[in-house]
């Protein structure tokens, strides 16, 4: 191709169409120079290039992380006291803390720190760094603080022991502080760049600018730069306590379009593509250089149905239950997301304690048209009813709300329920829903941490207001008891009862819990996906 274009130049240089041939030749010349031996050279092999849409990231200062993509680099640069291993979101694993125990007073959680951990500067990590990091989060009062609002203070016991004083020990804490917001940073370095953990940190802390482009943690990689909507650069942390990381550099390249990511991974410009939709993943099946990896997420798309003042039918529990038995759930998962999804009973995703796909078959909603018709008759609405279904003009995990709404509309029509579709701007939809003005909405839920209490509390405190559900005292007690129960087997029983209550109330119909799929070039080994909130464990990634 290039040679041909070049000969065009010599042939047509002074001819009667100089601008066409000349322009084409210039183009070819520029393009020819642009394709150096990309993937071949050694520097490229020692670099892991990740294609990811990072346009949502506001900050890489862990204490201000509240978006979808920024936990990934934060988790790579820093470690938490405890963590989750990929695939297991029930059992807490040690990280910077090797053991922890509730003290006799019932509200002090004592952590023993790992020996021999050094920050990327080479300085050993101490209990004071832990205390500083947590108190900074608390006093910065940015979004992460709300999830540890029940932490009163931190106290250094000795160099490798730190106490966490809790205001309310019944609230879960360990599963929450596994998130990359609650990491340990090197106090001396952070302070040098303007950080403070004092009570007035909200006004006085000036370290975010520096932390947006640098890091001072113990993680496998160290942040060295961030150009917004362009790329995030990291280099290997040679001091990493978990063994030598496999790459010299990690580059996160911003790619907003999934189609562009697909092209880039096929060409080898990126090694990992995160934002592919199921149709695109399917085209990679036969590619000899690429493998597809999946992990069941903890996110889900659901339909909320409110006891709307404008719609008497929706205030009838049996009518709402009829909706749940008229939806073709399996068809939705099979046709709209290529089968790459599971479905929980209710608001606790599959994979969490007390929630499995089997349980959904047992106690969840399922397609049962005679039962739906019977429920409608019992509700005094044998001919069905109509309601407005609002959704944003958007797509999640490759599923467009529009297609989903149309499928539900068609499903419900089979029993005489008429869904009037109301597509709108995503922000308007959220305004309407949070204001309690929607009859029904299709929307999405992703949790800040894998913790049952966060989902359950949302349904009885916040989401219940949006759907005008007067939560029975028994359900509230159930959620409180289940959250406070520290024995997983016992709490699983309580969570099952909670899910049964949610099905009975019939305000939430969870439709799709996606199995996220990413494409990885076979030149990369050891990259593990996780649904715990930070997408992937980079520590084990290495050239194959």
């Amino acid at each position, binding site marked *: *191709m*290039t040679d041909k274009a070049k000969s065009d130049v010599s042939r047509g240089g002074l001819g009667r*169409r100089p*601008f066409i041939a000349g*322009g084409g030749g210039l183009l*070819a010349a*520029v*393009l*020819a*120079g*642009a*394709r*150096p031996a*990309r993937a071949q050279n050694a*520097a*490229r092999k020692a*670099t892991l*290039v990740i294609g990811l849409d990072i*346009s949502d990231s*506001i*900050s890489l200062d862990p204490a201000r992380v*509240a978006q979808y993509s920024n936990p990934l680099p934060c988790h790579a640069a820093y470690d938490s006291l405890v963590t989750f291993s990929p695939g297991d979101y029930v059992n807490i694993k040690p990280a910077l803390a090797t053991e922890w125990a509730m003290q006799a007073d019932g509200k002090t959680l004592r952590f023993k720190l790992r020996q021999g951990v050094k920050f990327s500067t080479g300085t050993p990590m101490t209990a004071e760094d832990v205390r500083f990091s947590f108190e900074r989060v608390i006093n910065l009062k940015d*979004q992460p603080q*709300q*999830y540890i609002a029940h932490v009163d203070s931190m106290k250094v016991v000795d160099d490798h022991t730190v106490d966490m004083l809790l205001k309310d020990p019944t609230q879960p804490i360990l599963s929450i502080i596994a998130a990359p917001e609650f990491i340990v940073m090197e106090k001396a370095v952070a302070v040098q760049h303007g950080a403070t953990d004092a009570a007035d940190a909200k006004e006085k802390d000036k370290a975010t600018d520096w932390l947006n482009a640098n890091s001072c943690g113990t993680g496998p990689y160290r942040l060295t*730069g961030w*150009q*917004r*909507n*362009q*790329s995030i*650069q990291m280099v290997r942390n040679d001091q990493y306590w978990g063994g030598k990381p496999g790459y010299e550099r990690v*580059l996160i*390249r*911003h*790619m*907003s*379009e999934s*189609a*562009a990511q697909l*092209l*880039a991974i*096929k*060409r080898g*410009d*990126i090694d990992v593509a995160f934002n592919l939709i199921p149709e695109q993943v399917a085209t990679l099946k036969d590619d000899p250089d690429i493998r597809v990896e999946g992990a069941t997420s903890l996110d889900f798309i659901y339909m909320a149905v409110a006891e709307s003042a404008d719609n008497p039918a929706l205030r009838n529990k049996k009518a709402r239950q009829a909706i749940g038995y008229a939806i073709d759930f399996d068809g939705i998962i099979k046709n709209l997301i290529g089968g790459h999804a599971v479905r929980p009973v209710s608001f606790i995703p599959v994979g969490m304690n007390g929630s499995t796909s089997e349980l959904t078959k047992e106690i969840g909603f399922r397609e049962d048209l005679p039962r739906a018709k019977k429920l409608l008759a019992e509700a005094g609405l044998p001919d069905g009813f109509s309601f407005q279904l609002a959704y944003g003009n958007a797509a999640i995990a490759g599923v467009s709300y529009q297609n989903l709404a149309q499928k539900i509309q068609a499903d419900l029509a089979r029993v005489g329920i008429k869904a009037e579709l109301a597509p709108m*701007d*995503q*922000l*308007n939809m*959220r*305004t*309407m829903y*949070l204001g309690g003005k929607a009859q029904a909405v299709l929307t999405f*839920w992703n949790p*800040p941490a894998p913790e049952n209490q966060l989902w359950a509390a*949302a349904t009885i*405190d*916040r989401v219940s*207001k949006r759907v005008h559900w007067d939560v029975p005292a028994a359900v509230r007690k159930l959620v409180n008891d289940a959250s406070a129960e520290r024995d997983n087997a016992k709490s699983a029983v309580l969570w099952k009862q909670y899910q049964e209550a949610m099905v009975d109330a019939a305000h939430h119909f969870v439709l799709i819990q996606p199995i996220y799929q990413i494409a990885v070039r076979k030149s990369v080994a050891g990259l593990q996906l996780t649904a715990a909130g930070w997408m992937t464990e980079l520590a084990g990634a290495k050239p194959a």
Partner: protein
Amino acid sequence: MLRYVVSRLGLSVVMVLLATLVIFLIANTVPGDPVLMQLGDLAASNPATVAEFRHHWGLDLPLWHRYWIFLDGMLHGDFGESLVSRRPVLRDIADYAPATVELASIAFVLSLAVGLPLGILAAVRRDSWIDHLARAVSLIGVSAPTFWLAFVVLAIFYGWLDIAPGPGRLDPVSFPPTPITGLLLIDTAWLGDWDTFRDAAAHLVLPSIVLAGSTLGLITRTTRAAMLEALSQDYVRVARAKGLRGRAVVTGHALPNAMLPVVTLGGLAYANLLAGAVMTETVFSWPGLGRYTFTSAVAVDFPAIMAITTIVAIVFVAVNFLVDLSYALLDPRVLKR
């Protein structure tokens, strides 16, 4: 001349202010609540957090007061902090603008370099193959949706033929130089970093062609129409009758007179390229203003929206102003009126 300049300048300032006022009012009638876009589900359900957020961003003030704050800030060169990025808006814009300016300028030069000669030749050799070619090029350029065109060229030249680089401003593993102007071509040339220069230039090829598409079509058609009209004028016939060569008649007599509408259109087209590269920037992961504008609008990020509106209005008004001035230079009759 001076009076002409001053009156135009005065009018320009009024236009900019009007534009900001209109956008401010429109953005305020959107039913979506900007608070909900910024706060997580937990925070958005806490009335105290919401109230504090409103207060911090001045969303609890009366409309006129907020507009006054905006005007006051603008006079001091301060557009406030973006709700989305939590950084001064001007810093965001300074980060994103160079990528867009570079892309739009290359696209503009490209559409002029191809569109002008093509339009002139199409007029001179009316109904010849080149006229048909020009018609086809402009038809495709104007009517092909940018989004589609961007994917198609990316799929063909990057995905299939592998002769063009992929999305982004630089190769995935190469780093931008420390910004001087932020325009990669100028910065790398200044530093003598020719490898990165070539890389940046190559990454500009596909997006600039895509972006140039619609402008190119418009310029070609306008040039052709204006040239056809000029070529049928009496003075052209006189020039030909005097025995001047065809080329001299075209470039010396017809072209200058045909340039007036092309200059008008070209100016606006450039301003348009600067403001309207959202689709191209999205597909090519171009870290530019178009994308920033889009996300700001979706999030009802008032400070960002207002700053962008002001800047776009200033660009348009400035371009118009320059176009008006160039009228005066191109056509002396303008001043006499």
